[in-house]
């Protein structure tokens, strides 16, 4: 019973912070509510008995990516005068509606196989074993992707460094 109470609480938190990310005038507040949203999602993971995933979510999203986002906010000049394009009303309404239809469609006609009752042991050890054995290829592909993005970041920084000197 407590799981469902926590679930509603957390999803309410996530939805409201997501809404404030979009609607907030002050960009810094938007960044903060984004972090709140990530922490809410992490809470939902924990609620579903996947603590490792929740901790990873907090560590990577809320702890690193969002802070780098704020880092970027703090460095750019005159943050508060961010330009608001008002002329994209049509796109603003059309795309969310399309997305909503798509999501609801998939949810309705997907066959949900009922869970088998006893809690599946989703500990870290089994996760690691899965990485190393069944989906090793996917693991290596992700590693390559990360390496490429790292190299890209270095190139961009190096170029910018060159222009300043």
């Amino acid at each position, binding site marked *: 019973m407590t799981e469902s109470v926590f679930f509603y609480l957390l999803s309410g938190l996530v939805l409201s912070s997501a809404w404030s990310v979009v609607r907030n005038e002050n960009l*810094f*507040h938007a960044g*903060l509510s984004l972090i709140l949203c990530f922490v809410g999602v992490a809470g939902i993971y924990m609620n579903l008995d996947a*603590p490792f995933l929740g901790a990873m979510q907090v560590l990577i999203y809320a*702890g*690193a990516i969002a802070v780098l986002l*704020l880092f970027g906010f703090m460095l750019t000049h005159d943050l508060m005068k961010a330009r608001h394009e008002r002329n994209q009303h049509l796109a603003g309404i059309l795309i969310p509606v399309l997305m909503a239809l798509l999501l609801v469609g998939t949810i309705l006609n997907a066959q949900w196989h009922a869970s088998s009752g006893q809690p599946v042991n989703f500990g870290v050890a089994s996760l690691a074993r899965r990485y190393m054995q069944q989906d090793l290829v996917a693991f290596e592909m992700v590693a390559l992707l990360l390496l490429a993005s790292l190299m890209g970041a270095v190139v961009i920084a190096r170029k910018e460094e060159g222009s300043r000197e």
Partner: protein
Amino acid sequence: MDLVTAYTGQDVALVLIMLLMLALILGFIAGSSLILIWAERKVAARIQNRVGPMMTGPRKFAEFSMWTGGLLQTAADAIKLLVKELIIPSKTDAIPFIAAPVLIVTVCVTAYIVIPFGPAFSVSDLNIGVVHVVAISSLTVLSIVMAGWSSNSKYSLLGGLRSAAQMLSYEIPLIFALLGPILLAGGLSMQKMVLAQREYGCWFLLPSLLGFLIYYVASIAEVNRPPFDIPEAESELVAGYVSEYSGMMFAMFFLAEFANMFLVCSVAATVFLGGWLVPFMPVPDNPTPVYILLGILTFFLKTSFLVFIMMWIRWTFPRVRPDHLMNLGWKYLFPLSLLNLLICAGIAVLKDVYKLNGWGISLASLGALAMVMLLLQVVRIPRPDTFLEKA
């Protein structure tokens, strides 16, 4: 305590016990911070050839010796700060300004859940113990950035920027240094870590000494203590991100800094020095009350030893320049932590395949360390000649 570790059972009772435990932790943190702040001032005084706070506290004690004077000094400071007015400068945006100290203290409290003070004596032994601590403590960066940005002054902004860069770049070596012992223990939970050290027969300090050093240095940087305290470097940034705070908010930052320091040292003690393993006593299977007390005592002794070293380092070293700090973090600590992972893997294999007991493992780890020292000699940093020819 067994009821707590069961983690299932009636929900309402569970929540109540959880709240009781949290209140216990909060009381423990407040108490330990008071003592820590007093101890820091005494240690600093001793290093600087002076006496430190003597006036407050029981008069009889003060005459006895330097170390027992001024016991209530921190309590007096806390009351003074409580009475001080909370000034919120006009142009700051209030929400993050107030949220920052609150966040930093809550983060610190939640991280204490998994610390095993004694044999079965931790609030709730999550099976993601170590990662939980690291994940939660990565949120402190957020509160410093919020404080820096919202107090709307150039100096705090610079402080916020610097601390974000420093904390992010020191989380990586911190986590990788912990990977060594996790690999040896085969699990993330803290109690499992301690039990594994009993099973190995020697502390994880020996197999991953390199890991311990990296963890210790990275944790000093993570807690923003000198010589890595560039975010609030007095001589340059006045007081960095804390310069606009006053009264209780400033006290919260101060309290959080010491609580974080104790947290980081207790994790180091648990993971590397065998948390509550009494050094030469065989561990009985069902924990008798006497053994639990002894375990808690040894845990506190080990943690306070590490805290003492942190205080000692604070008052002897000058401050590091930000780019040296980054360069140390990325170019030296990070690769060395990978090397440490290699050593631990080797030792784990030795343990499983050759069934070595405690002494065998420590011998193997010393051999591995000698190899590392050799490698470091090859990569020696060249020093200009002025430094070599002593005047």
